[in-house]
């Protein structure tokens, strides 16, 4: 008989919890729907034996079950709500050998919930080097469960852990630190009487957690709010609880844990003195940023060009192979460019994810937070906002999610609101093609390429826009919230290639599957709208032939005329024409208008849309690249090149400021739990974009 076991991995941040997860599940893991639910809900399958499979959930790192951030809510919701689909049969608390005391705090809480709980002491290979001795059997007696010494990196102890998990029914679920007697016997007795259906610790958690618990009945909710009436008392009791738990832990560790601390200069101290130095610290951080951006451009451009070429070749190959018709058109003009439009971002996104993962794994990221906090606070943000702002250069969606560890709601909200200004990789193809059309490919002083400098300037513009709007929001927003900033500065670590590899792979996969679906769907819809229309559309041939009855045209000239007529009278042409009056002052015609509209789904669609429109129009020639087609495009009114310097600059400004990404809007809605903020973003950034683009075009034309 095979039963699927549910296991949850819980632990402090920086305990190597994810390494253990990777060891247990290998590549057998999946990240929760993206851009759907949470990116953090990582699950994987582990074969404990030939017949027993387990689903392992890697919960976000936390110091306590009392949640102070959106990330930690996930831990609370999973472990306290027994009806949660991920509610585990057994919990593995991952602790780290050096800071066992603090790790055990979380362990005692989970044990008290009455779930069978195993303690894994990770990084056990470093025990002798750090002079640590642990009496494992003593710990097992005192903690009343199985304790395992594991090194996820050296792959030791994993097999014994699997054995313990296989026999999880032998573990008891007794609580360890009974809070009901030690804090206020009378008060806890009343709780017990009022809520006999819950364990005392669960009731206590339900009382102390601020948000409404959806998984309990309204009556229970009423009883709970009764106990919440004196918040000062609750707070004092939580304080007492923390002291009590540490008493229990100290008692246990005194018997079973000894450290022979060798004095001497440690690596951490020496590195910290350099990396958080008032001058070298910032110089080093600036250097890291430069290396990141440099690599994103120089390394990524080669595979990107290759992807672009391959898809254009694939399209023409498929067209030759398949019989002509609607279906072939859909594949060649809709699906293939659509998929190509997604895959072209993979190199850049993967490289950015690689660097972010490296910075996190080494422990350097929290030093950056430490360095930047005071500066960021001037703009109403936190040092922790640096991570979202840097990740925002890859994609705003994971960046906004990574703001979850910011404790202050106000600082987090400002971060979420300004992140979409940073130049995400979806803007790069738009920038790249426009720059190549309007900026000459000249070099100055031998090294500075004018096109490259323009791109750099656009990046700077994105950061300036983010910082200045944060400054403004900081002045305007009336929200007050306490800033309880705490961050751990972990030991420096050499990153594990396996962890980094899996992180990059998973995040990139999630992007392709999630955001990619939207982009592909839009490409197909666009193709449909561009190749269908009313009676004008279906009778295009007759109408054009009639119109040119008196002029002699070569067959190919006639075909072009018909195709242009068709696109102008297709559904999408009608939409584009209806907004043309609004965008004429910015220097755009209805075709660019179509691209703008479709960009509101995702920016990168701009290039693909123009490609689709021009290739439908120019159906005889599928091998021309997008750039060639754009270069040949002529304004139907003025007869000048469509993408002149003024129009190009105006478009660049529009794309720099506008909020054109449905995925991001949906993420902001979910993270702020209100439509107010995404709508504010959409309108605010949209009108800013319109104004700047208008001014740019009017000045340059």
């Amino acid at each position, binding site marked *: 008989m095979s039963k699927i076991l549910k296991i949850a991995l819980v632990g402090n941040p920086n305990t190597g919890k994810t390494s253990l997860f990777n060891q247990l599940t290998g590549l057998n893991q999946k990240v929760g729907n993206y851009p759907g639910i949470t990116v953090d809900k990582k699950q994987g399958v582990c074969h404990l034996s030939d017949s027993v499979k387990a689903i392992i959930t890697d919960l976000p790192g936390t*110091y*306590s079950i*009392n949640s*102070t951030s959106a990330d930690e809510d996930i831990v609370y919701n999973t472990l306290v709500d027994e009806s949660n689909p991920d509610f585990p049969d057994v919990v593995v608390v991952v602790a780290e050998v*050096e*800071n066992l*005391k*603090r790790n055990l*705090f979380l362990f005692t809480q989970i044990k008290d919930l009455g779930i069978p709980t195993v303690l894994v002491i990770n990084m056990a290979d470093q025990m002798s080097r750090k002079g640590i001795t642990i009496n494992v059997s003593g710990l097992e007696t005192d903690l009343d469960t199985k304790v395992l010494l594991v090194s996820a990196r050296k792959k030791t102890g994993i097999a014994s852990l699997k054995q313990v998990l296989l026999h999880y029914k032998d573990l008891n679920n007794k609580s360890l630190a009974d809070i009901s007697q030690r804090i206020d016997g009378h008060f806890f007795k009343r709780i017990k009487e009022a809520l006999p259906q819950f364990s005392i610790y669960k009731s206590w958690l339900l009382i102390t957690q601020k948000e409404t618990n959806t998984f309990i009945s309204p009556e229970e909710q009423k009883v709970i709010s009764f106990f919440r009436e004196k918040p*000062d008392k609750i*707070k*004092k009791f*939580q*304080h007492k609880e*923390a*002291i009590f738990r*540490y008493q229990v832990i100290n008692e246990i560790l005194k018997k079973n844990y000894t450290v022979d601390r060798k004095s001497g200069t440690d690596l*951490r*101290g020496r590195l*910290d*003195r350099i990396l*958080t*130095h*008032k001058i070298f*610290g*910032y110089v080093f951080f600036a250097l890291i940023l430069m290396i990141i951006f440099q690599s994103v451009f120089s390394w990524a451009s080669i595979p990107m060009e290759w992807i672009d070429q391959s898809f254009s070749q694939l399209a023409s190959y498929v067209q030759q192979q398949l019989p002509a018709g609607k279906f072939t058109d859909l594949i060649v003009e809709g699906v293939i460019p659509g998929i190509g439009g997604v895959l072209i971002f993979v190199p850049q996104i993967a490289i950015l994810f690689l660097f972010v993962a490296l910075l996190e794994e080494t422990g350097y990221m*929290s030093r950056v*937070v*430490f*360095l930047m*906090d*005071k*500066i960021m606070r001037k703009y109403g943000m936190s*040092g922790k906002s640096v991570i979202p702002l840097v990740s925002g250069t890859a994609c705003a969606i994971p960046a906004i999610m990574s703001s979850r560890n910011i*404790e202050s709601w106000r600082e987090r909200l400002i971060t979420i609101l300004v992140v979409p200004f940073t130049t995400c990789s979806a803007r790069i193809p738009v920038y790249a093609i426009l720059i190549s059309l309007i900026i000459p490919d000249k070099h100055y002083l031998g090294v500075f390429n004018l096109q490259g400098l323009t791109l750099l300037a656009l990046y700077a513009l994105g950061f300036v826009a983010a910082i200045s709007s944060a400054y403004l929001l900081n002045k305007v927003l009336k929200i007050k919230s*306490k*800033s*309880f*900033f*705490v*961050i*751990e*500065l*972990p030991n420096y670590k050499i990153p594990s290639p396996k962890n980094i590899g899996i992180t990059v792979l998973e995040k990139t996969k999630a992007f392709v599957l999630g955001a990619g679906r939207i982009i592909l769907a839009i490409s197909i819809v666009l193709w449909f709208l561009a190749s269908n229309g009313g009676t004008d559309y279906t009778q295009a041939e007759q109408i054009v032939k009639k119109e040119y009855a008196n002029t002699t045209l070569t067959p190919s000239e006639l075909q072009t005329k018909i195709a242009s007529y068709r696109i102008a009278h297709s559904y999408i042409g009608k939409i584009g024409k209806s907004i043309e009056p609004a965008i004429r002052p910015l220097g755009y015609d209805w075709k660019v208008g179509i691209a703008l509209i479709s960009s509101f789904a995702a920016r990168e669609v701009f290039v693909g849309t123009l490609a689709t429109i021009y290739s439908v129009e120019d159906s005889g020639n599928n091998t021309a690249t997008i750039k060639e087609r754009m270069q040949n495009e002529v304004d139907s009114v003025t007869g000048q090149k469509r993408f002149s310097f003024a129009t190009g600059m105006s478009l660049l400004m529009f794309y720099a400021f506008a909020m054109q990404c449905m995925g991001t809007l949906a993420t902001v809605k979910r993270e702020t739990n209100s439509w107010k903020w995404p709508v504010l973003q959409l309108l605010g950034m949209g009108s800013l974009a319109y104004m700047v683009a208008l001014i740019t075009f009017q000045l340059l034309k």
Partner: protein
Amino acid sequence: MSIADLQVGERGIISDIALDKIPLKLLEMGCLPGKEVELIQKAPLKDPLYIRVNGSHLAIRVETASQIAISKL
């Protein structure tokens, strides 16, 4: 005096904590009365502070640090 008054390298024993101004998280990380705390470093703009307490290395802001009373060692 409070943690915010320490000089880099100095240590103290936590004597009292302004409960309503301190995140519970800090208490749960072991920043409790009776524990030794050391100021390891100040950020370049004097804020936040990099401290060691209960075996953890943490950064907290000056406004939080000033709510944790200590007696200097």
